[in-house]
């Protein structure tokens, strides 16, 4: 096992990793920017190194300074957390080359999964379901029609160079395809200077379902069930839960099997998350593999009892998986609300000093946060300041607990998304488990 680990991150995830290391008897080194000199993750670690000014490109993302910090403190491994350098294949590669273990998958794994098209290709080759789409760029209306008829309507036309909704057209039937194709091409041309477009199956109200996987150095892979992360705002997850109200035991086994096969196909190691899209007909499609620990990993920990960070560290140290698939028992239901330092209606950031911070407590409550009364939420980084996680015997109980805990949570001095979460929990559709990735948009409009 490692003797000393450097945590190349900040905030709650840095503290989360430090806590796991302490429980494993591993010494820790925190890095920090000048803006975080007094942060809790810095005070919680055994050693600390300032690696640069507030801007993350010059500090937390500054590979030379982070690696120098690792060298001068003599650590044998680096935990990257999420964000920052966690999915940087080059960083993982340099770590490997200087003999410092990168706690995560190999740099090859990261590079391969970072190329989304390549990842889909590998998975599709294995005969696993990926989102149906045209093989490549469409050259003509004829091409588009053939592809659409093969995929089935509705379809969405997207610009290959696209993004942000520009150049996109949803087409419900064959008659409308020609006009939409031309319009999308024209818009792509005028917006991106490139009229390349392609087709994909268009899903109505899909769910975002992801499966947590663990893989050891010996090629053994297990999964820890799914997480339903459908409640998103602009692709930012806000509320996550497990089990998903839309996944029954049979579907869980199927989707779990596909997730395990997908990472096996990629010779993937360490922890990872396989993302799927689940449509209204309960068909699921592979989207991508996240090669880091996820923000929402705690809900999986709550229902499995497995400490994912410790498992990640053990796997990185070369230990074999300590659990077999049949030992994974999902108990109860867990919910996570991300508390952001944001205006709960306008979503504008709300940095500042937290004048009062009283987290909720009691049975079934977990708070992952690096905040305390007097903490300063600096404006340079992610706005998430706390994760409130509940566990209950069933969805009803964990939801009731979440409502109770949100009511107890006192954060003064800044604005947070707590009021938004309270409103979401009161929503009848949410209570019935009727959510999709379009839920929040409708909810906020309504």
């Amino acid at each position: 096992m490692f003797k000393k680990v450097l945590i190349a991150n900040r905030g709650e995830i840095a503290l989360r990793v430090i806590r796991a290391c302490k429980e494993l008897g591993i010494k820790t080194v925190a890095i920090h920017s000048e803006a975080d000199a007094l942060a809790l993750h810095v005070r919680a670690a055994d050693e600390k190194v300032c690696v640069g000014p507030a801007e993350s490109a010059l500090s937390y993302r500054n590979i030379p300074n982070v690696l120098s910090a690792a060298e001068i403190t003599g650590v044998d491994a680096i935990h990257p957390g999420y964000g920052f350098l966690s999915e940087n294949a080059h960083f993982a590669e340099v770590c490997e080359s200087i003999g410092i273990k990168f706690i995560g998958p190999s740099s090859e794994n990261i590079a391969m999964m970072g190329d989304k098209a390549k990842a889909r290709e590998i998975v599709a080759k294995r005969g696993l379901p990926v989102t149906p789409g045209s093989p490549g760029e469409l050259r003509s209306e004829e091409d588009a029609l053939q592809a659409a008829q093969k995929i089935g309507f509705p379809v969405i036309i997207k610009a290959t160079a696209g993004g942000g909704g520009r150049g996109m057209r949803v087409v419900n039937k064959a008659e409308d395809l020609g006009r939409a194709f031309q319009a999308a091409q024209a818009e792509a041309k005028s917006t991106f200077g490139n009229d390349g477009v392609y087709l994909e199956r268009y899903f109505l109200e899909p769910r975002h379902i992801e499966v947590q996987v663990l893989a050891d150095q010996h090629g053994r892979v297990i999964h820890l069930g799914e997480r339903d992360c459908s409640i998103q705002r602009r692709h930012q997850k806000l509320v996550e839960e497990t089990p998903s109200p839309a996944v029954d035991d049979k579907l869980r086994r199927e989707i779990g099997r596909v997730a395990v096969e997908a990472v096996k196909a990629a010779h993937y190691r360490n922890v990872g998350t396989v993302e799927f899209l689940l449509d209204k007909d309960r068909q699921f499609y592979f989207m991508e593999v996240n090669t880091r620990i996820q923000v929402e990993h705690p809900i999986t920990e709550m229902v499995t009892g497995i400490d994912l960070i410790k498992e990640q560290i053990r796997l990185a140290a070369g230990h074999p998986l300590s659990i077999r698939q049949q030992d994974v028992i999902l108990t109860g239901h867990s919910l996570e609300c991300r508390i952001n330092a944001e205006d709960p209606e306008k979503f504008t950031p709300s940095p500042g000093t937290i004048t009062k911070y009283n987290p909720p407590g009691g049975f079934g409550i977990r708070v992952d946060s690096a905040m305390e009364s007097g903490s300063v939420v600096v404006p340079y980084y992610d706005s998430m300041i706390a994760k409130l996680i509940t566990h209950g015997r069933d969805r009803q109980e964990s939801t009731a607990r979440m409502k109770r805990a949100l009511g107890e949570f006192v954060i003064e001095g800044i604005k947070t998304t707590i009021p938004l979460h309270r409103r979401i929990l009161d929503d009848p559709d949410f209570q019935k488990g009727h959510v999709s990735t379009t839920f929040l948009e409708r909810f906020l409009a309504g």
Partner: protein
Amino acid sequence: MSRRRSVQTRPRRIVLPKAENETSQEISLTGGSTKQIQELIDLLRRNNLTELEFERQGIRIRIRHELSTRPLVTSAQDSVPTPLQQPMHSASAVTSVSDASTGFVTITSPIVGTFYRSPSPDADPYVEEGEFVKKGQVLCIVEAMKLMNEIESEVDGRLVKILVESTKSVEYGQALFLIDPRAAS
């Protein structure tokens, strides 16, 4: 990464204005003596107070112990102070007061690494205390990732103090040298 002469990230200067009515090392309370303020801070800490206020001869000093561990020292003139809007690094500003009174320039490390006073183990140090240095003159090396980074002086002046021992590790922003720019030869 190429061999560099501390160009990419420049050493940070901390120059604070000299206090006006200073006459001796032992500054009077009206001049803002850190020693006497420190005594008040100790008093505050010993008694586990949130706040301590002291008023004498028209000077009022209030010290508040915030929830975080750093003490904020304020000599307030406003009627309605809002301590929440203190600058984030007030603590470091406080520790730099002595620099302010001396007018010295602090040369800090622009990178994380290992500090060396000489280009190689058997070579002479680049500089010694008491020597005069020129702006741009190499003062030391900070090794990071097997690369030697030469750190140059930002100013002309007399090297008052070398703050780090050779072969010790340094973090970003760590003070390495004190230079007295008034003593420029």
